[in-house]
Every structure is written in structure tokens, then in C-alpha cells.
């Protein structure tokens, strides 16, 4: 095993996939010379040249649609959108085109493209640079949506996404790029993949289940460790890893075991991923619950720039700890 950052995992995986399959190509703003706004494409223009690593004009709708077109001919474009906020400029191409082409044309053409983009806040970039729109994409049949939390999963899911024959929205998180984790050494990597649509129990426990994804998984694991050490509560952490398809059995199995569930997500509270998970638990594990399902999520405001306000608006370890304690005491809100 070796320890690398989330950014390195993505960068090396893109390089490996470009080497492995001549149909793979990258496109996006500032991904070539500039090496990506968050340096995920570092060195790739040099190695693969401008035909396979394409710097585009600032035209999100244009190049996302272009990727869908190229994908219909069998290329495997991996598109970078600087931040998920700007993916909204391409939403017609994502939702009305990429997601539907295979179905609406009776399976005559696939769209094997990946759209990579970071979401998330916490680094004082304010509302229009800090949003989370995974719920928007997870809502759409025809898309697959993945949200890795570790370098290992980032690598395995990126491989699966690029090799998948359907459009995949691959959501990174600004605050995860520098986080570190273990991945196999190159010599015994075995070209592993992480399947799309499979959650993982990242930590086992018996008293309560936290359901999380992306950066919130990292936060949940920290809190679970601390609470177990300090208060002796045994907490299981389910990392969703994919939002569509959603691995409902893993969630349900865990909740049946612990009888308590707290969901944490970085996006807004109402209509979020948490609402879908809570409904699923209610439908499939109601009789196993010892306490109401709780959601911890972002405050419903556009994320403000000022540090103090930003901190107050984002879900934190404090909010999660409080929700865990209350759920353990069976406190209703």
C-alpha cells in the first residue's frame, strides 16, 4: 500500500486510462496548460498532446454537448467542469440529452461519457462557487452519479465510470483534494475497480448508523471514532459512494442491525439526498427503528463568503455529534 492524496489518485487514474484506451480523451476549461483549476490534470497535456487533452473555450453547454456527440461515436470523453456550480450552464445537455439518448433512441446509441466536477464549500468562495448539486443529478434516471470520499474509492470509481457505457456524473469535493489515503502500490494494483451502485460500510458498529457520502464521510468517521472513545457509543458508518443507483440494501441492513440512523450531507436540508435515504429507511426498516431518523445538512441559504457566516451555514462535527446524542437518547425534534 502507498499513501497518496485524492488529487493524485484522480490524476494517476486519468493517466492510466488514457494509456489503456485510445478512445479516452479529456476536455474542459483550463485542463491543459493550466493543469486544471485544482490541478487534477497535471502533466497530462504533456504526455498525451492536445488531441486527447483539449482546452476548450468557456462554453460549458457547448463542450458537454460536444462530448455527448463524440461519445455516441464511441469515444470516451472525460469532461471536467471547473466546479459543479458551472455545470448548471450545461444542464440541458446533461439532463435532456446525455441522460436520455440511449433510452429515447431505443438503445441505438450509448453515451459513454464522464463529467467530473467538484462540489462543496468551506473555503470561502461564496455561494456561486460552493454549491452541492448531487441531488439534482441523482434525481435523473439515465444518469449515474458517484461521490467518492477516499483516494481508493476515487480511483476505483473513476475506472468504473470511464469504462461504463452510460453517462456518469463523477462528483469530487474541493475540500477532499488534499486528503490522503491508502491505495495499492502500482505493482499490486490489479487494475481494481469499485463498482458503481455499491455502498461500503467504512466502519462497523452496533448502536447507530451514520449514512454519509463524499466529504461528509470523512467527517462522520472522525466523529464516530471520537464518540466511541469518549462515550462508548458504537457507531457504524455507511459511505454511499454512489447516489444513483443507490445501494439501498446496504443501508437497510445496517439500520436493521443498529436500530438508529443519522444521515449527514453537505447540501441543503430540504429535498436533499437525506430525504431519499430517510424515506427508504421508513419504507424498508420502520419496525427496526428505536428512534426517529435524523438528518444533518446545510443551512438553507446561499453559502456566504464571510468566514463566520460560512462556518455557521455548513454542517459540522458539532451538529453531527448533537444529532447522535439526541438519537441515542430518543429525543424527538
Amino acid at each position, binding site marked *: 500500500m502507498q499513501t497518496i492524496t485524492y488529487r493524485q489518485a484522480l490524476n494517476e487514474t486519468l493517466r492510466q486510462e488514457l494509456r489503456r484506451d485510445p478512445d479516452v480523451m479529456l476536455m474542459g*476549461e*483550463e485542463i491543459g*496548460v*493550466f493543469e486544471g*483549476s485544482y490541478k487534477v490534470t497535471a502533466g497530462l497535456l504533456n504526455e498525451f498532446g492536445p488531441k486527447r487533452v483539449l*482546452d476548450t*473555450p*468557456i*462554453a*460549458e*453547454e*457547448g463542450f458537454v454537448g460536444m462530448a455527448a456527440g463524440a461519445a455516441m461515436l464511441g469515444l470516451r470523453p472525460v469532461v471536467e467542469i471547473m466546479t459543479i*456550480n*458551472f455545470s*448548471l*450552464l450545461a444542464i440541458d445537455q446533461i439532463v435532456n440529452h446525455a441522460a436520455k439518448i440511449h433510452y429515447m433512441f431505443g438503445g441505438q446509441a450509448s453515451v459513454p461519457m464522464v463529467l467530473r466536477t467538484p462540489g462543496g464549500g468551506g*473555503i*470561502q*468562495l*461564496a*455561494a*456561486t*462557487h460552493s454549491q452541492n448539486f448531487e441531488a439534482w443529478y441523482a434525481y435523473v434516471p439515465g444518469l449515474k452519479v458517484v461521490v467518492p470520499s477516499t483516494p481508493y474509492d476515487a480511483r476505483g470509481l473513476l475506472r468504473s465510470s470511464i469504462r461504463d457505457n452510460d453517462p456518469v456524473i463523477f462528483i469530487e469535493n474541493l475540500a477532499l483534494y488534499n486528503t490522503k489515503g491508502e491505495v495499492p502500490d502500482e505493482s499490486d494494483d490489479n487494475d481494481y475497480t469499485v463498482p458503481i451502485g455499491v455502498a461500503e460500510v467504512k466502519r462497523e458498529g452496533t448502536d447507530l448508523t451514520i449514512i454519509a457520502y463524499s466529504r461528509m464521510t470523512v467527517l462522520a468517521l472522525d466523529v464516530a471514532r471520537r464518540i466511541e472513545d469518549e462515550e462508548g457509543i458504537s457507531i457504524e458508518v455507511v459511505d454511499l459512494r454512489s447516489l444513483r443507483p443507490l445501494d439501498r440494501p446496504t443501508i437497510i441492513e445496517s439500520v436493521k442491525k443498529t436500530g438508529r440512523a443519522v444521515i449527514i450531507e453537505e447540501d441543503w436540508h430540504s429535498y436533499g439526498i437525506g430525504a431519499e435515504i430517510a424515506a427508504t429507511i421508513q419504507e424498508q426498516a420502520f419496525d427496526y427503528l428505536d428512534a426517529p431518523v435524523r438528518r444533518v445538512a446545510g*443551512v438553507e*441559504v*446561499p453559502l*456566504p*463568503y*464571510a*468566514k*463566520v*457566516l460560512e462556518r*455557521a*451555514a455548513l454542517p459540522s462535527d458539532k451538529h453531527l455529534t448533537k444529532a447522535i446524542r439526541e438519537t441515542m437518547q430518543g429525543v424527538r425534534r
Partner: protein
Amino acid sequence: MSQSMETPSTNHTSEQPTLPRHLQLGLSDEQVIAALCGMQRAREVDDRLWVLSRQGKAHFVITSAGHEAIQFGCGWAIRVGHDYVVPYYRDMALALALGQTSLDLLLHAMGKPTDPASGGRQMFGHFSSRKLRLVSGSSSVGSHIVHAVGLALAFRITGETDIASITFFGEGATSEGAWHEGISIAGVHQLPVVFVCENNSYAISVPLKKEVPVPDVATKAAGYGMPGVIVDGTDIFAVYETVRAAMKRARSGGGPTLVECKTHRLRPHSNSDDHTKYRPADEIAAMQEHDPIQRLLAYVVEHNLMTQEEWDAARQSIRQEVNEATTTADRVPDPPLESLFAHLYGTEEHDA
């Protein structure tokens, strides 16, 4: 490039051959000196923001260095508090030209509750002031120009005449769908709006050739039913003359104009950029010769509007002013937590 409007004439000799440029344009000595000092103030605040970002006090910095002549030249052409202005993140000097202060900008950069642009909600570079009719937008490149078109439509619908909107953007923004849709609608309806492209030949690291398929952005105007004019964006007088004519044309019902001001971005795109990685060293060195402040200073000295000593003193006092503004802004307490939800929905009454 079409030039069916009153364009800057390069030859003024027919009228008053000896009159300095600014007097020919009807600008007083004081106006020129004020603009030069304003441009220097913008540069000084710019310098300060980079320092504050290293100290962790201003999280995001975006520069207007190299664009000051465009922005102050347009400032002269805008009737402040009357015409509507829809800027982009590069327009710090424009905010100063319209009457914002160094303190206003520093409060904005530090996210203080008294930040006049947003009360600490928006990252730096989103300048706004209802009083100055300075209308801020989102952060999506190019998406704001449609608001300028909408303002112009509103003037027409409410029957307001002798007014125009003016909007600013980089050449990279002219690839965006919203840009094309907005300018197209303005052309179809011949609305009173002026489009100012601040062409610094880079969109972050991507050079002009890879963003725009023609050498001049002004060429695009032809497809949208309006004149496109190219002007040297380091020459404040040329910018003023051209934009003044375009504003006059818009206000008097003559329709929209696209003005392309060519200049250089003298500094990296933002504080998360290092442009030495993608700009040749000789290009970086050579563009310093095209600093619009130095150009106007040379004019001011040549025409005896100011002596070098007076300029040195003026710079000193601008620095002093920015020092004081920095201290003042830094001392303002952060926004109170109770204000988190303030302004989410509109409850205030606004004067039009």
C-alpha cells in the same frame, strides 16, 4: 468590422491643431488628474489585496491591473447614478471610477457586514451599489450581460429615454451561450445597451487564439446587428471618445454597440494563479511598457498638468489613504451570526 457609428477620429488637426487631447474631448485638467489618481488608487488597493490574501484576511483577489484606462475612460462616459452599469469581476477600477472608495473595496474583500456590495456575502469582485446603479451579477462568466439587456428593455417599456445600460466582460466570456443570446436579443430589438469587451487576450491561461475563432471580438457584432468598434484599451482618451459616442447613440435611440478594448492583464488572473507558468517571460516584461497608468502619467507630465513632484506626493497620499482604509476595514467586526438569513427573501421597498 463595421463602423457605422461615430468612431474615434485619429485626425483632429482640422479643428484646433494645438489643443491637447483632453481639452478636445471636453475634459478638464482636474478630471484628468482625478482619473490618474483614481487609477493609481485602484492599483494601490490591488497591491494591498495581494498582501491581505497572504495574511489570510482577504480570501479571494482578482486584479484590474492593466484595465484601469478602460474602466476610468468608461467612467467618464457613464452618467453616474443615471445610466445602469453591469460589471464583471475585473472591474474594481470601474467601481472606484463610479464613486466607490478604497474602504468600500476593502470591506468587500474582507467580508465585513458593512461591505456595500453584499454585506459580506459574496466573494471579492462582485461590485454593486444601488445608489450608483452598479448592478452585480453571479460568478458564471458571461451570464450577466443579459441583465444589461433586460435593463435596456425595461427603459423602453417604462418609456424612459435618454438613458442606457453598459456592461463589461472579457473576451473569453464571448464564447458563452448567454453572451450570444443576450447580444442577439439586444440586436434584434435595437436596445439602448453598450457592450464593452475588455480583451486582455487571456482567459486565465487560455490564449485568445484558443478562445475566439477570429482575431477581433468586435467582428462578432456584425452577426448581431450592431457596430463593433476596436479601441486601444490602454489609451483612456480613445476609450472615452468611443464609449461616449456609443452611449450617446444608445441613449438617443440609435441601438446597441459592441466596443472591444484591447489591453493586457498585468498580473495573474487571481490569487490562485501564477501566470509565469503559461506566459513567456518576454511577454510579461514587454507588457509592462503598456501600463495604462504610466501612459496617462506621461501625458499628464507632458502637458504640465502635474509635475513629477506633485505626482509623487499624490501617490504618497493615496498609499496613506489605503493604509488607513485597511486598518479601518480590519477593525470592523465580522457579520453577526443572526444575520445569516438576512436578505434571503426581499422584504425591503426599493426606489426604482
